[in-house]
């Protein structure tokens, strides 16, 4: 876990979607794809919805679950994928292993394997991330709250999701900084937030409320 000290510098990020040219028509081909794509692809398919649908919509939490449930109509398998709680994993290799385990178990039961309709194949993608500094810096919790209210949701996303799962910083940047300035309890509360089932604007509000509580103390 990275312990941060000094003022907190806010960064933001941008994703560029790369098409890998790997397609799947059924669960067997999905398994083959999952085994060979880069981890950035697993990351992309389990995270891009967070920024794309930053309001509540009937989107399942990852592309694999959506495709299995809505295109292949294999609702039971789709539900298993949807219920994988990414927040409980250390990094994307562990998430990949979990998906592979689910698919291997499902296929080993001898279930009938159907192909999707033509033109509705699963297309594996990945992403290139560009990380840029913003002008915002916070030296204490009060300033931190002020910045949280101003920065874009992409900045919140970067520090809360990308830092932990793609840059492998062990925890979110926010939790690491709070720990670094001696706010252990706040860091703990931040780490325990259920961040995959909330909109980014909802997360912003929650963070502001939480940090404000400690800023007053």
């Amino acid at each position, binding site marked *: 876990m990275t312990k941060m000290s000094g003022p907190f510098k806010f960064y*933001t990020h*941008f*994703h*560029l*979607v*790369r*098409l890998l*040219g790997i397609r799947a028509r059924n669960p067997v081909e999905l398994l083959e794809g999952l085994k060979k794509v*880069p981890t*950035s692809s697993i990351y992309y398919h389990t995270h891009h919805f967070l920024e*794309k*649908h*930053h*309001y509540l*919509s*009937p*989107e399942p939490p990852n592309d694999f679950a959506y495709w299995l449930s809505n295109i292949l109509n294999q609702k039971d398998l789709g539900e298993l994928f949807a219920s994988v709680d990414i927040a409980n994993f250390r990094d994307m290799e562990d998430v990949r292993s979990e998906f592979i385990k689910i698919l291997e178990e499902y296929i080993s039961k001898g279930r009938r394997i159907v192909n999707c309709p033509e*033109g509705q*194949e699963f*297309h594996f*993608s*990945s*992403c*290139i*991330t*560009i*990380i*840029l*500094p*913003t002008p915002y810096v916070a030296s204490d919790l009060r300033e931190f709250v002020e910045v949280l209210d*101003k*920065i*874009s*949701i*992409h*900045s919140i996303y970067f520090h809360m999701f990308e830092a932990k799962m*793609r*840059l492998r910083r062990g925890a979110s940047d926010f939790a690491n900084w709070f720990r670094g300035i001696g706010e252990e309890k706040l860091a703990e509360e931040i780490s325990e937030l259920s961040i995959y089932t909330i909109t980014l604007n909802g997360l912003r509000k929650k963070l502001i409320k939480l940090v404000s509580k400690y800023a007053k103390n």
Partner: protein
Amino acid sequence: MQRIDGYAAVVGQAKIDDLYLLAEKLEDRVIQNINSTSVGGGVAEILTRMVPLMKQLGVDARWDVIKGNEKFFGVTKKIHNALHGVDVDISGEDLEYLRQVNLQNAEEMQFYGDVMFIHDPQPIALVEKKSGDKKWVWRCHIDLSGPKSDIMDFLKSYIKNYDCAVFSAPAFSADLSIPQFMISPSIDPLSDKNKELPKETVDSVAERFGIDKERPIITQVSRFDRLKDPIGVINAYRKVKRQFGCQLVLAGGSALDDPEGFKVYEEVKSVAADDPDIHVIFHPPASDIEINALQRMSTVVLQKSLKEGFGLAVAEALWKARPVVASAVGGIPLQVVHEYSGFLTYSVEGTAHYLRMLLNEPEYARTIGLNGRKHVKNNFLITRHIRDYLALFISLYHEDDIIQF
């Protein structure tokens, strides 16, 4: 000309600040866009708005158009159709003609860009003149999910010389040796085609075209092109006409690089001739306010395309909170989440079915329309599109998946 900062009122200041951050990293690069028409069609429409906005951000973006005669555009239209899977007779002589016109243009043009951003197949062969450390990007706006293989092979012989290719949807990607990216196109919420209109403007357009605003209005806005299936639209309308007493508006124009447009318009007019409630409207290019008004007065908007690059008319209608019934082709499923932000259809019968549902249930239709507007706001506005292009240009100068400044 719209100011980039004016978009903050729509998407929020933070997103505009993000664009400035990205643009800073490109301040010493020149981006040279090249396509085949300056007027008409989605590509010209996007570039008209986007190039000035990029300049305001501090990016030196410019735009050139290749020259072609009737024969050239006849060949490129055949290629366009073949890439959409249509059986067309294209000779080796045709393909050589395309190449020769490209080479003539290359002789007359200055290649001054650090990034050569080439749009669609018409100017694809300019890459033969690739030299030095310029980055060449092929931006494909059309649906390549089921192309005729001989024409695709012809294109690939050029694509392989580009540094990367960009497609509008994952299904359009091809088996290529170069990196491929996905960037969806967009609409401009502040353009004449999409901005809010006063009620009087909408009323006057309805009056001018003899449209009765008191009765349901079904509309399809698209170029007069067989791949947009205007006859299928009329057939779907005829299935619901008797029950709902509705009207049909088929409105669109033609791009300068599409020689078939007027012919298709005449065909549609003749099929619709026996029904005074079908309004077939051929718009000249500068008719954006009229198109905007027609979309806003519509009860339901259709996009019953057989093939579609992205289908920007869908995003336009969704932005105006209109309920949409659209074919599940090309980039449309990215815009329409079935039964949430519209309906996806596969047939004339299916289109008629969803039309009945929406015409019967105005409250439900309203909810669907509002969901669609939110979806477009988050994903298909020009600010997101500019952000993706800037990220693409930056990525051309870096090797890794994570680029940290």
